[in-house]
């Protein structure tokens, strides 16, 4: 029973507070306030909370209430059932994928020892690992995350088909074609990194990135697989249909794509799911390529650099400090990547559709195959 309670707390904190909180505040800060700064506007500042505009935060609440009170319109001759479940099909996978993202290493009930001679592995002495910081410990976490993320293709395609509108149908087609194109490059660029880690378990992967090259350079994925990092980030951007890749919603051509016939909270849910997917891609990049919860030179039993070892405040207290630092590290990385995606979104102009397809099939795909092959050659030579 205690286990179920802990799980519930983890789910609520990670998914409903962190993810939806970040996704919600991003609609405001990232998409409205930041875009306003970039375009030399003021942005939302009229809704006030006790006389303070608070960076436009009251607007977020006001918009939510407004969307709830709007009329829910299902177009005539649209498939009512599919039109209703399509937003859920986009929204649910965006939340379920978070079950495998670790926000910190497992909690050790004994003492943690770092072994610099074994690639800075951390072992738990006189105790056991307790999974308190990720919803679930899954041995094939990366595959699961991909499988779940891919389901949202159905949501977009069904939303486009069920709306009985030509613009929606075109948007649904475009979005599904774009998402499946970039999924190929995404999976193959990941394969190179997986070859080096040799595990599909995300937490194990992050643990391996705690290794220091020459006792000072953190062996994060971006260091050992720089090309794969860029390919993965680009493909991830295209996958979220944001940034310069928002062809499915290109309003100058097809109004709002598959969102054309959506109103009220169903529209809000689609939007929220897209923001949640943005955060999810950021989290995937962070755990696979940016060291996840690892903070450079900070280990559970002290600070280690150039072979020196220093434990401030004693072992017991430092363990808790390191937990806080590491949770802060992954949160910072996710927020940074989210911010990066928004900067790209508001700086770069939209691609043409043929350019999107050319980038996916003719540039990213050959590069990711080459990356995998070169990684295989290097790994074979080193072995």
């Amino acid at each position, binding site marked *: 029973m205690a286990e*179920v309670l802990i*799980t*519930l707390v*983890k*789910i609520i904190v990670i*998914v*409903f507070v962190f993810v939806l909180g970040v996704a919600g505040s991003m609609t405001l800060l990232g998409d409205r306030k930041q875009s306003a700064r970039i375009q030399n506007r003021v942005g939302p500042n009229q809704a006030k909370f006790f006389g303070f505009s608070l960076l436009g935060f009251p607007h977020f609440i006001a918009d939510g209430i407004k969307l*709830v*009170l*709007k*009329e829910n*319109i*299902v*177009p*005539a001759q*649209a498939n009512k059932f599919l039109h*209703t479940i399509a*937003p*859920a099909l986009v*929204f*649910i996978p965006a*939340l*379920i994928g978070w*079950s495998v993202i670790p926000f910190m290493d497992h909690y050790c009930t004994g003492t943690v020892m770092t072994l610099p001679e074994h690639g800075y592995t951390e072992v738990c002495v006189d105790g056991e690992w307790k999974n308190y910081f990720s*919803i*679930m410990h*899954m041995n094939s976490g990366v595959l699961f995350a991909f499988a779940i993320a891919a389901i949202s293709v159905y949501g977009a395609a069904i939303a486009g088909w069920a*709306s*009985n*509108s*030509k613009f*929606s149908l075109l948007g649904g*087609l475009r979005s*599904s*074609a774009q998402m*499946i194109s970039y*999924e*190929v490059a995404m*999976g193959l660029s990941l*394969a190179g990194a997986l*070859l080096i880690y*040799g*595990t*599909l378990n995300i937490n194990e992967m992050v643990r391996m990135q705690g290794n220091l090259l020459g006792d000072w350079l953190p062996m994060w994925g971006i260091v050992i697989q720089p090309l794969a990092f860029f390919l993965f980030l680009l493909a991830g951007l295209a996958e979220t249909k944001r940034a310069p890749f928002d062809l499915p919603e290109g309003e100058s051509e097809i109004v709002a794509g598959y969102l054309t*016939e959506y109103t*009220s*909270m169903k529209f809000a*849910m689609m939007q929220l799911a897209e923001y949640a997917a943005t955060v999810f891609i950021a989290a995937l990049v962070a755990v696979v390529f940016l060291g996840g919860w690892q903070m450079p030179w900070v280990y559970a039993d002290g600070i280690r650099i150039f072979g020196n070892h220093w434990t401030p405040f004693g072992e017991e207290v430092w363990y808790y400090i390191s937990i806080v630092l590491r949770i802060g590290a992954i949160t910072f990385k996710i927020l940074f990547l989210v911010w990066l995606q928004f900067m790209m979104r508001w700086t770069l102009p939209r691609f043409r559709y*043929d350019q999107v*397809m*050319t980038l996916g099939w003719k540039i990213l*795909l050959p590069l990711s*195959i080459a990356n*995998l*092959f070169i990684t*295989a*050659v290097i*790994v*074979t030579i080193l*072995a």
Partner: protein
Amino acid sequence: MEIANYMPLVLLAIMAVGVAGLIIGLATFFGPKNPTREKMMPYESGSDPIGTPHGMRFSIKFYLVAISFILFDLETIFVIPWTMTWRDSAALGHGLYSFGVISIFLAILTIGLVYEWSQGGLEWD
């Protein structure tokens, strides 16, 4: 992994479905309901829609992309298990053999990609 280990996933799935249902419920039960003919009309720049979208013709390229996706995603499905088992083969001293096999596999796929490219299967016009 045991079945009981998947309990958090089931809990999360139930909660996600619950929240999604709640939001759709909010959309359906709150808010006014006074549909008019114009409001229920699918959007087509304000004029009456001509024909239905389901009889509409669209570019054949979308099918080609879908077929290419199936081929190359299958490739990923074959490659990822290889990345997992490579370490075991290398530990048994068959690392070079394993590498040779996957090289042939990747070469065949690269030839496929080059062929599709040269036949214009990746062009959008």
